[in-house]
């Protein structure tokens, strides 16, 4: 790149708007941050530079409010090959194989345009994984919506599900698991968290670190259009008002191009022609190039006129900030440009040299001969301010922490003081209510729309994953709630027979500048750290999504945990449903008087009150050991975690979740001296229901690990569920329970879904 040799001084482009305090504010840059920027540059920034800084210093790219707290999470373990800070975390799983995985949110785009928002979320997380050199083998997702009684919520749900399905199905990555929950707090601000797991050989690991002075930088994949340019609507003179209405802000995903990009990228990485590769995700070319330069501590120069564009007349500002999908930034080895282009062209994709790694410590953007942006060294990334917001929970009313007083009061309420409804005299009624709760009910209406089998041959390999998340607990008590989130994820993974290895997290919270929200965030991160240390599962990366608010306030604080585990022998992988009449049913763990924060209170009484259940992290670790050993020895036929709805719902799910092969069950614990509702529907942690033909062997394993375990019943051939706890008996034919569980969401979704609120 010869233009880099004698750069002219940076000057505004003709037609650039004047830099005014109003323009700075519209870019989301505070006066303090603007002062920092001017001090760094020693001059007034250009419009292009303002755009660059507004993107890179945004919360999404910089983690400026969350980073200090995130640093407290454990990230190290011998099997961690790549921790946080890269496109995705990578862990070794033995035999020279490694797993790359990460979770990411697309909450705000999905709130505006659910189909494309969710689809592009899937696309982004896939690219994060395959840019590490791994072939994506599984997608998971975690979704939160408002009350599905609302037509708009149903529109959001239908759009998100179709967006996830269409994109993953077309690329050919199976969507294997996920969870969906509903609560009014997510009204208008749904959460869409997608996780991708990829498999690779350890030696194929590649990172996104720009290296090698003189190496060319290429833009690869789809062309750059005006998609998703943040705030580009204002102040640009190129834009007349009538154009503005037409200007697209949402990004549109093209899974077909993604599939080609996936194959081309893996071929490129294995070819040895490149040194680094990164997705052009949020803030597109700007963040990918600046972050790659910062990781490699090198300078870069980019010429925007070399970037392949979709429409003529795009300004440097637009090209730099475009969030067009299915694009990659690649640093190639000098002289290998043609080889890189040949691989991309074979897959019908573009690859153009747009810049170069340079020795001069500078981040420089050219428009032909003109320098339109220039920042010293890597300070564009490193000078981003970090904040330490105030965190406060107080039972006293405080003008800046309005919610916390209410939460403290809710937590203090006694669930037993809630009078039962008359219908609850028959616990089978209550059970049916819980099974038909959209949060508990079968999500087959959703999962049938995902291709869960493509590449099945690969998924049956070493990776196993499950995502879990804990509902209302985090709101009531963020630290305990987050501990439970990790513990439950580990339990879910262990219930398949896999040993939990590491997690990726997505932290969805409200506005961090509110002390009560930041309190939730800080406590939840600390709780997550506690659990990860106890369970030996480090955090290898993730995502933070803040400002999830609607006019009524913040969404429920929602830390999503994606955990990856390893099954030693896939032949022993278990399912959750009972399979064989006559098998013994064993309950691992202890049932306590813990009704706070339960799905029962939420569904039957519309209340989120009480203290969430306690969690014993050491006990959870021993439970995981028990499950891994018992399942690994081949004596366990099914295993299912007790979570929302407690023991009664867990048992019913074991009986009816596989509608084609339902089994009855009879379970009795006569000496359980607890209030009836706590016994049936309380959500004590650390409990798992197993079925086995060899109960003695399972009990012996549990005893060796010090986990409470007892035989509580038997799987039956006749279609009846009997659950007798402390003298109260719930008895029901399976058919109505199955109908409640399986038909709730299809019936809900046959009703109209419209974008209009």
């Amino acid at each position, binding site marked *: 790149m010869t233009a880099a040799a004698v750069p002219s001084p940076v000057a505004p482009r003709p037609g650039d708007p004047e830099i005014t305090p109003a323009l700075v504010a519209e870019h989301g840059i505070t006066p303090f941050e603007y002062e920092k920027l001017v001090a760094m540059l020693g001059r007034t920034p250009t419009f292009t530079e303002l755009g660059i800084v507004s993107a890179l210093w945004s919360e999404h790219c910089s983690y400026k409010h969350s980073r200090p707290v995130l640093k407290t999470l454990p990230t190290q373990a011998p099997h961690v090959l790549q921790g946080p800070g890269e496109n995705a975390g990578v862990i070794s799983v033995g035999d020279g194989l490694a797993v790359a995985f990460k979770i990411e949110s697309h909450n705000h785009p999905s709130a505006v345009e659910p189909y494309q928002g969710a689809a592009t979320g899937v696309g982004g997380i896939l690219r994060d994984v395959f840019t590490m050199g791994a072939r994506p083998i599984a997608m998971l997702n975690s979704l939160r919506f408002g009350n599905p009684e609302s037509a708009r919520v149903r529109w959001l749900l239908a759009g998100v599900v179709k967006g996830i399905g269409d994109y993953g199905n077309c690329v050919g990555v199976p969507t294997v698991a996920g969870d969906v929950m509903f609560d009014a707090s997510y009204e208008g601000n749904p959460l869409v968290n997608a996780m991708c797991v990829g498999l690779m050989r350890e030696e194929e690991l590649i990172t996104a670190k720009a290296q090698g002075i003189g190496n060319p930088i290429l833009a690869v994949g789809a062309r750059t259009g005006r998609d998703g340019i943040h705030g580009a609507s204002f102040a640009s003179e190129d834009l007349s008002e009538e154009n503005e209405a037409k200007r697209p802000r949402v990004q549109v995903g093209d899974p077909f191009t993604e599939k080609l990009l996936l194959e081309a990228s893996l071929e490129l990485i294995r070819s040895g022609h490149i040194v680094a590769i990164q997705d052009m995700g949020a803030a597109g070319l700007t963040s990918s190039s600046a972050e790659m330069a910062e990781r490699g501590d090198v300078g870069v120069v980019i010429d925007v006129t070399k970037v392949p564009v979709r429409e003529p007349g795009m300004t440097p500002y637009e090209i730099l900030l475009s969030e067009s999908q299915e694009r990659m930034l690649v640093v190639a080895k000098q002289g290998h440009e043609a080889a890189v282009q040949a691989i991309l062209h074979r897959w019908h994709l573009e690859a153009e040299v747009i810049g170069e790694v340079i020795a001069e410590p500078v981040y420089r953007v050219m428009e032909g001969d003109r320098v339109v942006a220039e920042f010293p060294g890597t300070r564009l990334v490193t000078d981003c301010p970090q904040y330490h917001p105030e965190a406060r929970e107080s039972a006293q009313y405080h003008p800046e922490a309005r919610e916390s007083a209410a939460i403290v009061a809710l937590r203090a309420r006694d669930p037993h003081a809630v009078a039962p409804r008359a219908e609850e005299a028959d616990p089978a009624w209550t059970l049916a209510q819980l099974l038909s709760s959209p949060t508990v009910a079968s999500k087959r209406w959703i999962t049938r729309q995902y291709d869960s*089998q493509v590449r099945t041959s690969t998924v*049956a390999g070493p990776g196993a994953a499950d995502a879990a998340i804990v509902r209302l607990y985090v709101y009531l008590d963020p630290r305990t709630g987050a501990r439970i989130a990790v513990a439950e994820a580990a339990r879910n993974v262990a219930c398949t027979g896999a040993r939990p290895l590491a997690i990726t997290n997505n932290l969805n919270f409200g506005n961090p500048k509110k002390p009560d929200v930041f309190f939730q965030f800080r406590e939840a991160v600390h709780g997550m750290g506690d659990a990860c240390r106890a369970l030996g599962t480090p955090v290898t990366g993730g995502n933070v999504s803040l400002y999830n608010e609607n006019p009524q306030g913040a969404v429920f604080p929602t830390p999503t945990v994606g955990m990856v585990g390893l099954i030693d022998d896939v032949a022993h992988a278990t399912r959750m449903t009972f399979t064989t009449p006559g098998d013994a049913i064993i309950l691992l763990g202890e049932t306590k008087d813990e009704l706070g924060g339960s799905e029962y209170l939420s569904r039957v009484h519309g209340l989120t009150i009480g203290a969430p259940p306690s969690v014993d992290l050491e006990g959870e670790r021993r439970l995981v050991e028990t499950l891994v050993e018992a399942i690994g020895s081949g004596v366990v036929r099914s295993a299912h975690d007790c979570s929302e709805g407690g023991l009664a719902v867990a048992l019913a799910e074991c009986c009816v979740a596989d509608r084609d092969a339902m089994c009855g069950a009879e379970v009795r614990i006569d000496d359980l001296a607890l209030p009836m509702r706590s016994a049936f529907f309380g959500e004590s942690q650390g409990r798992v229901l197993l079925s086995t033909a060899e109960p003695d062997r399972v009990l012996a394993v549990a005893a060796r690990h010090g986990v409470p375990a007892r035989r509580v019943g038997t799987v039956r051939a006749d279609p009846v569920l009997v659950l007798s706890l402390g003298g109260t008996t719930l008895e029901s034919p399976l058919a109505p329970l199955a109908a409640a569980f399986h038909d709730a969401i299809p019936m809900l979704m046959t009703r109209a879904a419209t974008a209009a609120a």
Partner: protein
Amino acid sequence: MSLTFGVVTFPGSNCDVDAWHAVIDVLGERAVSLWHADHDLQGADVVILPGGFSYGDALRAGAIARFSPIMREVIAHAERGAPVVGFCNGFQVLCEAHLLPGALMRNASSKFVCDWVHLRVDGTNAPIFLDAYAPGQLLRIPIAHGEGRFVADEATLDQLEGEGRVAFRYVDAAGHATDDANPNGAARNIAGITNAAGNVLGMMPHPERAVEPLLGSADGLPLFQSLLARVGA
């Protein structure tokens, strides 16, 4: 004698790996990868058009893939009487290429559907694919498609049935071709058909994903074993 299976990869094919796995790892046979832009079948005895989303299913599923250079060779191969089989998107390509009659339209539910279905073996004119199955045998095979509703005019449907060319039908667990057992609204519950000569088979379900008990079923295996016995002999 062993067989060579040619697995075509169009841009957007994604079940090519499933076919590879079935042929190489489970059957222990040879497979060659046939790139859409190539003009050579590399000595393949059997051509497999795999599932996926060739060209992103733009316009109509299979509509663009049928013009790929490799398809000229595939059509010639079929016209010589040699076996060609299309699963899912491959079936759609075969219809668009007029190697099979009819068309595949958007599912009646208008939704993508991934599930296990029961199939009944009804075909009688294509022992090359069906020999290892008993007539009327019930199979459990997965489906995963958004455009799988087979349609053709009444005369064509009558002809397909009359000539024993309805290879597979969607049925319930008892073997009855009911509406409830029809996952996509296909005419007369048709899941797969053959050409008049019996050497081209297209089907929406994925037998290549049902070749090992670990995956939930091995009911797809006899299709490949029929080919081995008939073509490889």
